[in-house]
């Protein structure tokens, strides 16, 4: 009886406490900021796995004990360090921490391990911090493990100042110095390729002065970095390595895509493009994309595949149609699609809001319409139109004030296909295992045939008009020039105004002239407004004045020299002409 009670109590305790200590997965949402992620870490329980969604995160995070940080996809889960003297990830005085399948960029240090931290595993990550950065810095830890990472383009790949932490199965490429340590203990089976200085290479190293052969090292666009190994890479199947790969079950590969914790997903297709061509009453959609150069896909025997998914009229998964081409083919044609689409109904203009030189037109939505065409025309002006792809409202700008515009709207509809491509790893590599597919490529929207336009709405009129400010103040600008050129701020009038301010108003005679002009100018300006046909002639007459004013304002010294020169030449020429005329007579 005593034993039964004792066991019952024990069972009850286990039942009560188990949920409290049960490890769980915590997802970090895309676009989370540093504070939000740090709070997730601080609130996590022992044994929790924190999984980052594919995306880029600006971080300076401090980890705590008994946690795993994991990226959803090594190549596309990017931790971007903020350069403030702190590492992207700080492991300080903690135990049992794993950092897995992440890409770390832009930090001064990717991961710092210090404070006697123990049981730390940094595995299957990519570090690309540029020439000033250090990928992993082990400052104080006896048993950290840096395994199956790719260090590319860093100042220092791994720095170990104390202890004998293990550094194994990594790829070091394009680093100024691969490994900086005080002794060679624990450094095994690393692949060194194209580093300025390998540092301490340790035992069983594979070395080369060439790059190791990546699918895409990101030289063209760092955002497209794909450190999967290409066929014939020197870092595939490290000779004698006492371990295997999760991906193909063969001898272990070095780098982020080798070992038992490797991310098995191929990198998604990039640069997916489309073209539509008519073909005997139907249409063909041609697709092409950049090749995935990972050996998972490009193996000569039994290569991987590209799966083509497409829908008509509906965006996103699930896709109704699927086709397949084997690598290395990177193109596909969807044959015989039709562009037939129903003629859309006619919309109704629901409002016209005038403003200065603008009209905002709103109309009713038409089912099935993919866009609208807004027509506008004014008396003595050719009709124009604009296609509105989004929404049922549009603001026409640059219109003439006080002119009545006639407005009509017609709905447009078209047939669209939505297409994407997925990479499927080689079935041979995956024999007996799960088939690995990449994420979808960026979906493409292909329009088939021409847009079909429905009937126009009933016409509605609108008149843009000048805004009336309060109070309504008179403008004392250059009256005649303003009247001739149409508005006060015309570029041509500015030199005259500057000349007035700089050379007339400071002096009494100039002020007298300006005062006289301000009395007479409005009269002339009103006459010019009434007789608009003379405006071009006035503009021509003003042109030399404007040119002289511009020169005097902008090149005063040159203008002075020029005027003096003209005066001197005039002084010399005039007597000579008189003399010639005297002789002739």
């Amino acid at each position, binding site marked *: 009886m005593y034993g039964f009670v004792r066991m019952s109590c024990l069972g009850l305790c286990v039942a009560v406490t188990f949920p409290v200590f049960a490890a769980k997965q915590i997802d970090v949402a895309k676009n989370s900021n540093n504070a939000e992620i740090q709070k997730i870490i601080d609130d996590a329980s022992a044994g929790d796995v924190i999984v980052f969604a594919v995306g880029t995160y600006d971080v300076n995070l401090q980890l705590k004990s008994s946690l795993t940080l994991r990226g959803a996809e090594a190549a596309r889960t990017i931790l971007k360090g903020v350069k403030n003297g702190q590492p992207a990830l700080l492991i300080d005085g903690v135990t049992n921490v794993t950092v897995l399948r992440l890409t770390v960029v832009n930090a001064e240090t990717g991961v710092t391990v210090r404070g006697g931290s123990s049981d730390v595993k940094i595995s299957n990550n990519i570090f690309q911090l540029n020439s000033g950065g250090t990928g992993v810095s082990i400052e104080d830890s006896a048993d950290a493990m840096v395994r199956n990472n790719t260090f590319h383009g860093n100042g220092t790949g791994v720095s170990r100042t104390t202890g004998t932490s293990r550094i194994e199965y990594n790829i070091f490429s394009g680093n100024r110095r691969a490994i900086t340590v005080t002794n060679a203990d624990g450094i095994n089976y690393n692949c060194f390729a194209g580093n300025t200085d390998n540092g301490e290479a340790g035992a069983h190293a594979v070395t080369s002065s060439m790059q190791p052969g990546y699918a895409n090292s990101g030289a063209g666009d760092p955002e497209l970095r794909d450190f999967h190994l290409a066929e014939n890479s020197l870092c595939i199947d490290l000779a004698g390595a006492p371990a295997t790969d999760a991906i193909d079950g063969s001898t272990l590969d070095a780098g982020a895509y080798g070992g038992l914790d490797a991310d098995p997903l191929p990198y998604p297709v990039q640069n997916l493009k489309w073209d539509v061509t008519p073909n005997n009453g139907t249409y063909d959609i041609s697709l092409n994309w950049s090749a995935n150069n990972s050996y998972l896909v490009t193996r000569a025997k039994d290569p991987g595949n590209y799966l083509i998914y497409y829908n008509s009229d509906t965006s996103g998964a699930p896709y109704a149609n699927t086709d397949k081409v084997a690598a290395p083919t990177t193109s596909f044609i969807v044959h015989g699609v039709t562009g037939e689409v129903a003629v859309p109904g006619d919309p109704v203009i629901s409002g016209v809001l005038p*403003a*200065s030189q603008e009209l905002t037109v709103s109309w009713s939505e038409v089912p099935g319409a993919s866009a609208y065409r807004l027509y506008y025309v004014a008396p003595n002006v050719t009709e124009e139109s604009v296609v509105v792809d989004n929404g049922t409202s549009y603001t026409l700008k640059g219109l003439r004030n006080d002119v009545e515009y006639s407005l009509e709207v017609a709905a447009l509809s078209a047939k669209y296909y939505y297409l994407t491509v997925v990479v499927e790893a080689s079935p041979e590599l995956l024999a007996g295992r799960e088939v690995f597919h990449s994420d979808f490529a960026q979906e493409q929207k292909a329009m088939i045939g021409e847009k079909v336009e429905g009937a126009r709405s009933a016409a509605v009129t609108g008149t843009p*008009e000048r805004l009336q400010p309060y109070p*309504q103040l008179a403008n004392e600008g250059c009256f005649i020039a303003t009247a001739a050129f149409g508005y006060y701020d015309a570029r041509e009038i500015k030199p005259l105004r500057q000349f007035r301010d700089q050379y007339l108003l400071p002096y009494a005679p100039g002020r007298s002239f300006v005062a006289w002009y301000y009395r007479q100018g409005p009269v002339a300006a009103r006459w010019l407004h009434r007789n608009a046909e003379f405006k071009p002639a006035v503009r021509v007459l003003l042109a030399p004045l404007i040119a002289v004013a511009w020169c005097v304002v902008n090149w005063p010294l040159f203008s002075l020299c020029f005027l003096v020169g003209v005066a001197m030449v005039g002084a010399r020429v005039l007597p000579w002409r008189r003399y010639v005329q005297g002789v002739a007579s």
Partner: protein
Amino acid sequence: MKRKILLTLLLLHAVFPCAAVAAQWSSELQYGRYYPELDQWRDYYGRDRAPYFGAAMAYRWFSFLELGVEAGRMHDRGRAILASNNTYAGSVELELYPVSAQLQVNARFAAGQWLVPYVAIGATQLYYRQIVVGQEKASGRVTGRLLRTGLAFNMNILDHRAAAYMRSGYGITHTFLQLERRQLTADTDTVALGGEVALMSLRFEF
């Protein structure tokens, strides 16, 4: 007119020789609120006032009489209307720059007087600029007049050590905090651009 003013000043100087002062120059930094005379201002600009900044300089013949100039700036942003349907639309900026010459009389009877009432009259040239987004600017000027009344608190009596430091370090003999109300009248043919200004200013006498 100039002769009359000159003769008046000479006469004052003869009658009040004791009122002549060593400190002859003064400057002011002004901040306040401009309450336009226009009755629909609030409808267009959202409130019945606009911020005003100014600076002034004056020369004193006597402790109670000085001649000065000042310039200020008022700026506000509001809306315009579409006349056809009387709706507000668009954006308008209005800037006013009053530049004034003025004669100020201070009720000052002793050097250490802590409260000095004053009144001033002056002539103003009010420059304006109005910007309607998408349309041409309107700018011009209008002549007006100015009436100022206020109280100046002598801050020297609050802290003699600071006052001594200001005198020895910067040559400032007196510092006043002024509270003032002024009436600015400046009318175009159709628009009264003036208004009342409630001001607080710091006045430094050299």
